[in-house]
């Protein structure tokens, strides 16, 4: 209970930093904190593997890529000032949406569903179960994901290095050791 509260606090605090500070690098680190907190949340939701993946991919990969992108794009660190009214309106929209959704959530009764929750399915929660599912039910998705990432990489590289398309990259040099 306390742990969960703490985790939520960390995540929300990180998220608030991420969306509010002007310094974009700090915002990215705020995102990192929020994501770290979320990893802890995943831990509490009994999915340590997903938590570890979250940290490895998000903190170790995506935030780093973001930072590199910042370093490539904005030298000023401080984005253009945003109008107060813009923030207020954004806040209003978010809050309205929150209230609406919270109302739905609070109004719902998950009680009957709870009984479905598995009790003694230790093996079902294991990483092996994920592996089995990936090979069985989700095999096409599993392969497709690699395609998606390939496409993302190809796209990203070709977008990012478009300007030197004309140059003939040294392709056939030996691999080097």
């Amino acid at each position: 209970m306390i742990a969960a509260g703490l985790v939520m606090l960390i995540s929300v605090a990180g998220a608030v930093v991420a969306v509010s500070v002007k310094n974009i690098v700090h915002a990215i680190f705020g995102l990192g904190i929020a994501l770290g907190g979320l990893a802890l949340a995943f831990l509490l939701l009994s999915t340590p593997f997903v938590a570890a993946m979250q940290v490895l991919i998000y903190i170790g990969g995506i935030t780093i890529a973001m930072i590199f992108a910042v370093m490539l794009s904005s030298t000023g660190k401080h984005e253009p000032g945003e109008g107060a009214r813009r923030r207020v309106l954004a806040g209003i929209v978010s809050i309205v949406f929150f209230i609406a959704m919270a109302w739905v959530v609070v109004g719902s009764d998950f009680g009957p569903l709870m009984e479905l929750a598995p009790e003694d399915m230790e093996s079902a929660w294991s990483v092996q179960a994920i592996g089995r599912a990936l090979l069985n039910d989700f095999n096409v998705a599993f392969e497709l994901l690699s395609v998606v990432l390939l496409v993302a990489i190809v796209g990203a590289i070709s977008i990012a290095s478009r300007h030197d398309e004309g140059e003939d990259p040294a392709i056939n040099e030996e691999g080097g050791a």
Partner: protein
Amino acid sequence: MSYLGSIFSGFKTLLTGLGITGKEIGGKSVTELYPHVEPELPEAFRSVIQLVRFEESGSHDCVACMQCVKICPSTCITIEGGKIEGIKGKRASEFEIDFALCSLCGLCIDTCPTDTLEWANIYDDAGQEREWVYDLLKPHEAFEEQYLTTRRAIEAKEAAEKAAKKAAVAKAKAEKAASEAASQEASPEKSDTTSEADS
């Protein structure tokens, strides 16, 4: 070379390198543990410059000819001529070298007509202050001992030479005397004076 071939041969050179350095692990160290082990100094070692001085008289051969002052590129030598009791002719009464300026080129030693300047044999003369003027007439305490040893050796050598000379002279005299004695009788007092001079 093929891709794999180049990787393979590359790794081979790396392993060769590892082998070479690995062999050294058992090897002998060449480090001299400096403060604990005294370095061996060559004879010609150039450290600070000192005057050849005689222990007993405290005197030296510097005649204050100012050759060294003139040749010194660093203008670090200061000499004043003066008189020393019991020695004939001009002698330096003040001989200072500013070792903060001196470049240890040794021109002063080469140019000295009386060969009274020489290299001291000190390797660890270091100071923590800018002021680094040595009065060569006063033995510096930092190397007094070495100074004295060499001095004693020089004096002993010179004394020995002198003695040898005297002995030779005495011998010659003696021979002469002997030859004379062949005609005349020798005087026993003379040999006494020789032995006095030996000591």
